[in-house]
């Protein structure tokens, strides 16, 4: 078999050196009742041709975003990733290396992480950032739990504009740890609604901008209110490209900024792997979850980088660790960082402007469809619209025509009573022809 270098002669020789009669002898510690005498009931090994046929066959049953007009967003955005990014992340030295535990022979990975942290801190307007988390949703949950460690309080207030999946993940984990989650009702312009829920037991307030309905909000006043109550403000961004144009979380007074970084370098991947961005004020650094890369010097005084502050981490602190996380999303962080390096600040701003412009065009076109109502007052690259009847049914209908018309809000939060709300995003990959095709199809369907 192609992945196994040993042949039978090797195996015999090695068993001889070991002094074992056969390989079964090496499994002697397995209790007899638990030994499988034959392979399990699954197919035998297969060549590349057969494996490729099977997987390509499954792939062909899907309709990729690039196959036609496409408007899905709601926390995962289709952007063009420069070919250079994928080329570099496939280099053996990045792809097949491990956590940089031996910094002397991992400076490639480590310098990338240091650059990544610097980029994330600048994007979010915060002082420090970690080396990434699994994704935006788990980063949000980690932020809430970090706010408990910082404030020693038990309650988290979640805006109704927070992505429902983020709220669910946060709820799942934080309540297990004993926190109370106060989630406000879903609404297009939900942010100010958190103010009333802040009290002296509040560890943090979590707001999202642009929120799940696409609404952009300046949360400076919420920061002030949170801080006045001794709580932290956590600002969530699910569309990292927006950070190129909008006021940064730091500018608005965030204590912790978390974001989904998938938009840069990573791609859609049916939801994963993605990359969670996590940044905060420097004073909280020892309460941060996840890996941190820091600058140091080698024995000859030359600059180098290492994983640092690992006394926060589980392999040292065990049950006293700040989090149980012991990986990052390293390769995705690399992809993010390369894409960001190609764009630069100027390029990201331009990209954000192109996205916003395309979304304005989309929103204008949707507003012209009789029966549709654009709900989002101020948006970046995504809008919510009210459709007559079920948004989910409309989306399935249009999929039959080859148009992926966006995400029904009911898909995210079935119990919110917003079955007639549809979320549509536009990016630099959306063409004018795509928008025309959508509008024509909607106009036919909606009478």
């Amino acid at each position, binding site marked *: 078999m192609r992945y196994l270098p040993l042949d039978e002669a090797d195996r015999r020789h090695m068993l001889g050196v070991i002094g074992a009669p056969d390989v079964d002898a090496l499994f002697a510690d397995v209790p007899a009742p638990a030994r499988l005498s034959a392979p399990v009931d699954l197919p035998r090994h297969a060549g590349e041709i057969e494996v490729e046929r099977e997987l390509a066959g499954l792939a062909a049953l899907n309709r990729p975003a690039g196959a036609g007009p496409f408007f899905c967003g709601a926390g995962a955005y289709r952007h063009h990733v420069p070919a250079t990014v994928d080329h570099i992340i496939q280099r053996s030295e990045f792809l097949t290396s491990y956590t940089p535990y031996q910094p002397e022979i991992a400076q490639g990975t480590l310098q990338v992480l240091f650059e990544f942290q610097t980029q994330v801190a600048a994007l979010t307007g915060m002082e420090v950032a970690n080396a990434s988390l699994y994704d935006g949703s788990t980063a949000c949950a980690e932020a809430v739990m970090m706010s408990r460690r910082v404030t020693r309080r038990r309650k988290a207030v979640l805006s109704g504009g927070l992505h429902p999946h983020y709220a669910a993940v946060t709820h799942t984990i934080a309540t297990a740890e004993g926190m109370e989650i106060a989630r406000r009702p879903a609404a297009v312009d939900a942010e100010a609604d958190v103010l009333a829920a802040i009290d002296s037991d509040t560890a943090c307030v979590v707001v999202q901008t642009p929120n799940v309905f696409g609404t952009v909000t300046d949360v400076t006043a919420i920061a002030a209110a949170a801080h006045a109550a001794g709580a932290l403000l956590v600002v969530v961004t699910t569309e990292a490209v927006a950070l190129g144009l909008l006021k940064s979380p730091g500018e608005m007074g965030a204590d912790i900024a978390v974001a989904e970084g998938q938009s840069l370098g990573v791609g859609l991947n049916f939801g994963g792997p993605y990359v969670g961005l996590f940044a905060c004020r420097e004073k909280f650094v020892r309460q941060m979850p996840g890996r941190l890369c820091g600058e140091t010097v080698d024995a000859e005084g030359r600059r180098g980088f290492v994983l640092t502050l690992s006394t926060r981490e589980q392999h040292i602190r065990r049950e006293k660790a700040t989090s149980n996380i012991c990986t990052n999303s390293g390769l995705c962080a690399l992809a993010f960082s390369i894409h960001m390096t190609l764009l630069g600040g100027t390029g990201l701003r331009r990209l954000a402007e192109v996205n916003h412009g395309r979304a304005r065009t989309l929103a204008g076109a949707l507003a012209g469809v009789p029966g549709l109502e654009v709900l989002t007052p101020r948006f970046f690259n995504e809008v919510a619209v009210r459709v007559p009847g079920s948004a989910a049914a409309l989306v399935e209908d249009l999929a039959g025509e080859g148009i992926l018309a966006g995400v029904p809000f009911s898909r995210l939060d*079935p119990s919110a009573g917003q079955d007639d709300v549809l979320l549509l995003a536009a990016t630099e990959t959306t063409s004018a022809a795509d928008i025309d095709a959508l509008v024509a199809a909607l106009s036919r369907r909606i009478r």
Partner: protein
Amino acid sequence: QDEALIFERESRNGTGVDLPAPDAGAEDLAGLVRAAPLSLPGLSEPETVRHYVRLSQKNHAIDLALYPLGSCTMKHNPRLNEKLARLPGFADLHPLAPVSAVQGALGLMDRLSHWLKTLTGMPAVALSPKAGAHGELCGLLAIRAAHAAAGQVQRRLVLTPTSAHGTNPATAAFVGYEVVEIGQTADGRVDLADLAAKLSDEVAAIMVTNPNTCGLFERDILEISRLTHAAGAYFYCDGANFNAIVGRVRPGDLGVDAMHINLHKTFSTPHGGGGPGSGPVVLSAALAPFAPTPWVVHGPEGFRLLEEAGDEAVQAFGRMTAFHGQMGMYVRAYAYMLSHGADGLRQAAEDAVLNANYIKARLSGVMSAAFPDGPCMHEALFDDRWLEGTGITTLDFAKAMIDEGFHPMTMYFPLVVHGAMLIEPTESESRAELDRFCDALLALAGAALSGDVERFTAAPRLAPLRRLDETLAARKPRLTWRAPEPGVAPAPLAAE
């Protein structure tokens, strides 16, 4: 050979991306736009490529040589899997696209689940956890939910051996459990008597790694699970070392209730410098109803997704992540499974164990095996007794391996063994490479025992950098680059 940071370049405003002009029309974000320009460098494409290619050459990688990090399972990553994961039908697929547009993706998740369940002998699997530690979290949340459903709210303890991965106690604490350690026997296994003594109706679960972190199979595993179940607790198995037994032992036959599977280890998705991982959790019938959403279910018109508790999945304890987990890793792992087949996976486990025992046999003449009696599984554990009196530590010895072209083994883990050196070769190594490795280690060991201390304490000499000052990094954390102030020379860090 030093590569400047991207922030240190003179020319910072180039571009590696050409974009069209934004659509006409007024920007609609008055007062919401960032005030200061985003001061991040942009490099042209040639400069970008060079920066990262140069940096990459400072890394060790499994594609370059043996990478024997114990408990990390650095095995060969087939390129076929990279190619397949990039098929637009998988890579360019939106997680919330209509279900009719993603039948192949759901089908793949269903088939992957079938393989995982069959290989483990377990009835259910939750795919969505994003890494091993995330899988542990998932498993303990399911256990917690099951106890809650049974009114067993007094169960607040989790037992775990001293040799456990740090994530085990960390995860238990993270979800509010109190951690109690179980002792270890002289032959490196769970102390059954201690376990029995500590089990009670306050215990929610035990967390045991098998094969354990000493590289040994828990001989009394059936008794461990019997005792645990008799006490009303669940058996969480840390599946990080499943690669040693896949195809030969099914955890379901051992009485396991929940086990995460590191797809990046056992099923070879690339480690990528520290992630992304993927940690699906197989569950026993008792725990299956509490699995988190989403679930892939068969319907009359194909596959459906249950995404929220409140549908049929009323008992789901919640959600581990937005969307459906690490699809990119599912594709790679499934391709890996198909390539090996049932026969190949079993053979891979056997070769991994054979390789580890070969290393153990070849090195034991000079280095001291922590548990010399009996076979090891997929990794060989040594301690530092043999270095006593040389003035050379495990760390020094490991750093000297770098100068021989190898990545060091895992050091100082598990904690139960003094100066531990944990070597995991995996099945990907040829006999010639194993011999090259053993020859190099024996030569190094000879040098250590003959008093050539300098070769070790000064190592590495042939790496891009000499030994790095980790204490300094932690004492004065510099986590981001900051522009030097005009007129002030940048202050380099210096050891004090």
